[in-house]
């Protein structure tokens, strides 16, 4: 389990994350929702060990992230960042193989290739493997980066839960690939991985998440299963915009409709 206990992160004289306690549990897909500037990406940086909290601590399997060897950590948790810019003409295959970097000297080239191939297929970019990354569209790039983080965690013989942290993984994807990516993430969670996804689309969260966390001004407003958390009042308070909640026709999950408010 990745567990943050009362973590705070100060940037520019104010707390962007303020005494937050949250955990990424094995077998669970947690979705984090919140308005712009709520501290979602800062929370991702804390949970991934990229930033050290000013107060509180973050642990993986009970050990402080600061005490993990970088490469050991990289084999256990992967992060899909919001935007990754790459202007050099690496091929898609080379980009995905970069995900195998933490496994150097432990896995054979054949294993690396098999892992990369499986990830490329899972992210539906196998047909792009030979293309130069800068020639891809935004959505294709996002899927390739997703394949890279999948390849990073692929490890046949290794024990230990894997943790996947996704920061707005669907921002450039079409509806089919949005559903596909989160469906895959949910499948990995059922396989025992811990998955956390920062999402902007409340309906994607309502459909795919086991746990929904509402974040506002660096604090957690509510946390729990979709039906208990995604109430009109709470969502309205979180986003500062009227939100209607009903039941989906195709699934017993909340259907969230932002009110058609105009600029006032």
């Amino acid at each position, binding site marked *: 389990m990745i567990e943050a206990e009362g973590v705070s992160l100060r940037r520019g004289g104010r707390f962007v994350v303020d005494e937050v306690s949250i955990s990424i549990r094995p077998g669970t897909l947690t979705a984090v929702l919140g308005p712009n500037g709520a501290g979602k990406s800062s929370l991702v940086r804390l949970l991934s060990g990229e930033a050290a909290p000013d107060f509180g601590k973050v642990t993986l399997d009970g050990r402080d992230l600061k005490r993990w060897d970088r490469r050991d950590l990289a084999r256990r948790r992967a992060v899909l960042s919001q935007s*990754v810019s790459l202007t050099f003409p690496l091929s898609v295959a080379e980009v995905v193989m970069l995900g195998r*970097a933490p496994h150097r000297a432990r896995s054979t080239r054949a294993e690396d290739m098999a892992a990369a*191939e499986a990830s490329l297929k899972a992210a539906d970019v196998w047909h792009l493997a030979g293309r130069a990354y800068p020639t891809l569209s935004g959505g294709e790039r996002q899927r390739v980066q997703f394949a890279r983080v999948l390849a990073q965690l692929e490890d046949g013989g290794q024990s230990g839960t894997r943790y996947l942290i996704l920061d707005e993984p669907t921002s450039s994807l079409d509806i089919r690939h949005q559903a596909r990516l989160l469906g895959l993430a949910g499948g990995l969670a059922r396989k025992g991985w811990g998955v956390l996804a920062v999402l902007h689309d409340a309906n994607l969260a309502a459909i795919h998440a086991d746990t929904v966390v509402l974040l506002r001004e660096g604090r957690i407003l509510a946390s729990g299963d979709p039906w208990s958390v995604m109430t009109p009042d709470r969502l309205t308070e979180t986003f500062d915009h009227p939100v209607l909640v009903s039941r989906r026709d195709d699934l017993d999950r909340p259907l969230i409709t932002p009110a058609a408010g105009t600029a006032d």
Partner: protein
Amino acid sequence: MTSLPLRDAIWTGRSRHAGILAILSVLAAVAIIASLGVGASAISPGTVLRTLLHAADASPRDAAIVLHLRLPRTLLGFGLGAALAVSGAMMQGLFRNPLADPGLIGVSAGGAMAAVAVIVLGVPALLAGTVGPFALPLAAFAGSLCTTLAIQRIASDDGRTDVSTLLLAGIAINAIAGAVTGFLIFGSDDRQLRDITFWSMGSLGGATWTTVLGLAPFAVGAVVAAGRWAGVLDALLLGEREAGLLGFDVEPAKRRIVIATAAAVGAGVAAAGVIGFVGLVVPHLVRLMAGAGHRLLLPASALLGGTLMLCADMLARTVVIPAELPIGLVTALLGGPFFLWLLIRQRRSFPP
């Protein structure tokens, strides 16, 4: 399983890599032999090879020209070209910017300035005994290192390097180095003045076995070390953040790369003055041929850099026989237009 040929083509590509390196090696060998034969007194490739393999059988005249005049110059040129090209490739990876070049961003000028200062002001007596013949390379190394670190500070913000800041900082540093060099020229005598001119335009004319030995450890060191950093350089193309998340120790790696780059450029400047554009043009050509993966980019750049440097030197030696052009002029004449073409092309493919 998917078709194996597809997998081979996409993943390993090793045969293709090997093919490219083999072609570049052949080109390099041809350039070396040509460079040993071309000059005021032309010697046929056959004679060059015979002289190299059986020095005892060759005529004393051929042996003298090939082994004592042209071999050090050729080795210096090749080593220098390789060192500059590999430094350029590493710098471009480090700054995540294809326009980074030791000459353009002021690293060479910083090294040259320090070297000129040593020529004019002399080595302090206390140090002269210990550093002796390595005073110039060490000064150029120190100058290059300081400039690289300064540029890294100026142009990088939160792990991202801003292109325009990088190039503008290069302009400023080139101007400062030029001004300081100008001041030093005031205080120099005729002999020093000639030396300084040689430094600022670049030439392989001063090649002796001593200069070759001065450059060799730095050039070979940088090229060999670069090979070990191919993985982290690839990861750095995604950004420092991603490289860190992939388990690389980014900060120490960056420091080592900066030091190796500065050492290679500094040693090159010490041996032959400022020779621009090799570090820019060569990695670009390789990327066009073979993509941006550093495992191939670095060795291929070394081979192609050495080869192109020898070609430039042959031009410099032959166009105005019996005099010779400074090689820095030749590389600037060829590299300048290439750089402009690159800028225009970038503008077209990434409109502002």
